[in-house]
């Protein structure tokens, strides 16, 4: 009896492992495609396309951008998190969600806001500014969660031993934030490599904008693929750097008991300047884009609300995003299952592979899928299937994070019990596993939904004929400098993202409570 159940569990485990393996293999199609075209173009030609001054320029631009933006985001994100979580600045309850909210504004909408406020904005510093206001919450969110969870006893001991507040921050608090710093920093750096619209609007050339320009000029030509190859290499360098810096240090609290909430630093006379600082950060991040959208909506009046156009775009966007959310979340299950339930080296490889895929910019995936489908799968070319495949490849990692966390909390004993009682694998899955992971899966799906609803590059390259998503319409109108007509699309994209941003915020609070 026991062995029969175990064998059945093993069988379904094997099946899931194979499915997971296939999915992970599929995520390597774009990478494999880029590498193979570079090789098949001949080493000589490829080298000529890579070792040229333009690539040097793009490399310098991209490196400058990362080197400047990531530290600024870290200082801003951690600084704001510390003020909000650890001082008695007025309105502490309100500030928490406010600095997560910029995540609801797509980077290219931020760019639009800033460019219409300061029309001369362009180049590296414009890129740094827009990237900072768009991406600093990716540090703020984990930093605030960690600060909330930190055991104040350690800091108090350090104080008692005579360390000043600054020393305590640098020697005790900052090291504890290391994971937030590295994880957030990596995420921001990868976003910087992948971003297209925001930088195109402020005339700042990166590999991604240059690949797009090559695509516009020659449709999946050799030069575009060469640039994509360099971009992939950059992503891998970042991943390796982060992995090396993370090390094996231990961050968990040792010993029994629950940490108390930290006592907040009394700001005294500094209350007002610190409050103003937060207000300025709010104005710069959320204020500018929202103010610009409202201003354009007022200038445009009722005639920019072309309801037929907006309705059609909204319908198509919701349709694509919903289907992609469901497919991606379903695909995340087998991969998450292997990652959670198996401790083998294979599971580690699957996790690592997932990181590599998540680091590939959408433009690389799209470029590969365009060519692969046109050459080998003409029936799928330019169909919803191809663009959905791209979304799945791009956003599987996001879904995975959620689904994996959900699966990890399902007691294996319940599943075993169900199987011991004679229920089949699928029945057990639907009755026990799925039920218990449903909340996590729903938030994973919601995350993918928003990512797709605001996605631009892959959609531009792959969308089926007649598709005009909100992001495409916004991009085309703002490209023609018809900022007023673009405003409704920007507003709708932000509104669509708000619920998930709220979800992210509550999740980070919950994680901190564990």
């Amino acid at each position, binding site marked *: 009896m026991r062995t029969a159940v175990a064998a059945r569990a093993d069988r379904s485990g094997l099946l899931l492992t194979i499915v997971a393996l296939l999915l992970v293999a599929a995520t390597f199609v774009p990478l494999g495609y880029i590498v193979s075209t570079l090789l098949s173009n001949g080493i000589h030609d490829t080298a000529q396309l890579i070792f040229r001054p333009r690539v040097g*320029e793009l490399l310098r631009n991209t490196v400058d951008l990362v080197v400047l933006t990531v530290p600024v985001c870290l200082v801003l994100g951690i600084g704001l998190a510390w003020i909000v979580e650890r001082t008695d600045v007025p309105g502490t309850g309100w500030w928490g969600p406010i600095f997560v909210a910029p995540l609801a504004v797509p980077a290219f909408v931020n760019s639009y806001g800033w460019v219409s406020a300061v029309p001369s904005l362009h180049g590296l510093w414009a890129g740094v500014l827009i990237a900072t206001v768009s991406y600093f919450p990716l540090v703020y969110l984990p930093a605030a969660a960690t600060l909330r969870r930190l055991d104040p006893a350690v800091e108090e001991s350090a104080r008692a031993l005579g360390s000043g507040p600054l020393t305590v921050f640098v020697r005790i608090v900052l090291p504890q934030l290391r994971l937030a710093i590295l994880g957030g920093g990596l995420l921001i750096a990868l976003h910087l490599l992948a971003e297209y619209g925001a930088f195109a609007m402020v005339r700042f050339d990166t590999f991604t904008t240059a690949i797009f320009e090559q695509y*516009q*000029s020659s*449709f999946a030509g050799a030069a575009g693929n060469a640039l994509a190859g360099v971009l992939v290499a950059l992503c891998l360098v970042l991943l390796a750097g982060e992995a090396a810096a993370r090390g094996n240090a231990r961050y968990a609290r040792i010993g029994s008991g629950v940490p108390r909430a930290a006592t907040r630093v009394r700001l005294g006379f500094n209350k007002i300047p610190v409050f103003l600082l937060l207000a300025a950060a709010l104005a710069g991040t959320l204020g500018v884009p929202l103010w610009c959208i409202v201003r354009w909506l007022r200038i445009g009046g009722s005639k920019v609300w072309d309801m037929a156009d907006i309705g059609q775009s909204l319908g198509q966007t919701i349709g*694509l995003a919903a289907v992609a959310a469901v497919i991606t979340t379903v695909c995340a299950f087998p991969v998450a299952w292997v990652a959670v339930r198996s401790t083998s080296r294979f599971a580690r490889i699957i996790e690592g592979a997932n990181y590599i895929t998540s680091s590939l910019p959408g433009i690389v995936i799209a470029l590969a899928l365009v060519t692969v489908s046109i050459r080998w799968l003409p029936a799928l070319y330019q169909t919803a299937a191809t663009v959905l495949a791209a979304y799945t490849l791009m956003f599987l990692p996001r879904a995975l994070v959620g689904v994996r966390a959900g699966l990890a909390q399902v007691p294996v004993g319940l599943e075993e019990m169900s199987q011991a009682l004679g229920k089949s694998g699928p029945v057990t899955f639907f009755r026990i596993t799925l039920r218990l992971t*449903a909340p996590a899966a*729903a938030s994973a799906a919601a995350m993918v939904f928003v990512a797709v609803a605001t996605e631009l590059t892959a959609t531009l390259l792959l969308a089926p004929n*007649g598709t005009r998503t909100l992001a495409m319409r916004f991009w085309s109108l703002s*490209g023609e400098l018809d900022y007023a007509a673009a405003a409704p699309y920007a507003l709708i994209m932000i509104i669509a993202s708000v619920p998930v941003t709220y979800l992210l915020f509550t999740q980070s609070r919950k994680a901190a409570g564990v």
Partner: protein
Amino acid sequence: MAAFGWKVVTGAIAAITLLAATGCSSSSKDDNNILIYNAQHEDLTKEWTDAFTKETGIKVTVRQGGDTDLGNQIIAEGKNSPADVFLTENSPAMALVENAGLFSDVDKDTLALVPEQFRPSTGKWVGIAARSTVFVYNTGKLPADQLPHSLLDLQQPQWKGRWSAGASGADFQAIVAALLAQKGEDVTKAWLKGMKDNAIISQNNTAVMKGANTGQFDGGVIYHYYWFRDQALTKENSNNTKLLFFKNQDPGAFVSTSGGGVLKSSSKQENAQKFLAFIASQKGQEVLRDGDSMEYPVAANVAANPALPPLASLDAPKIDPSKLDAKKVTQLMTEAGLL
């Protein structure tokens, strides 16, 4: 709250998926439909397709893109291309598709509507509109006596950091193609090298005009109608600027022909030809005169919008539109480090 939250999210996603699925299935293939790969301005083509559908009942689906990427895409698709009609802003992409042997002959009656200089001698596609190259400049920063005399002047060191162009766009690449056809490879290479040193690269023509207007640079190379459209509307992006028409058959006086063609692979030849005939007809060309596109009509003896200088007065260089080489231009611009 948490439990309620996820139920709502799951429910909403399920409902939306269902809606999306039913929405997709209702838009099944209609045999009377044609698909246009459109690199012309979206709003101009919309005016055309709306009028065409109203007159003929033939529905039109549009895939929007740039000249060169759509042209290269059609070539990559070959005989499997789903497109029936290809419309561009400029002729190099038309020549690209023509040289790949992918166009049907355009109906003789349609060709007869368009003067010779606005169509290739082969009759594989037809001109549908025209646009003139101009230099838009900030009147505060650039006095009339300092204006360039030729497009070629812009490669000189004194123009460093002072002018702009939308290098990645098909519009600008058509101008380079005309330069290449008129003056040859050596002159073009030298000019592109000068451009790499001197020019500030913008996203597109609109951005060039806006930059000149706010004084970020002195001027830039664009097509005429961006300026006339802005003047006709709010003047917001052009009120500090004027246009210089180079004339004298200068490479900078190039008039670019927008083209339309029917793909050989299309299974709806008749409807596709009907569409080309419609936009070359009087009614179709009047859209250019009366609408807000500000491009020049080329066919059916329709006069231009009265705000524009007459096409004949622009003294453009004579260049066979089918001789413009998009591939070579991309290659030269990549070599020059502009792409």
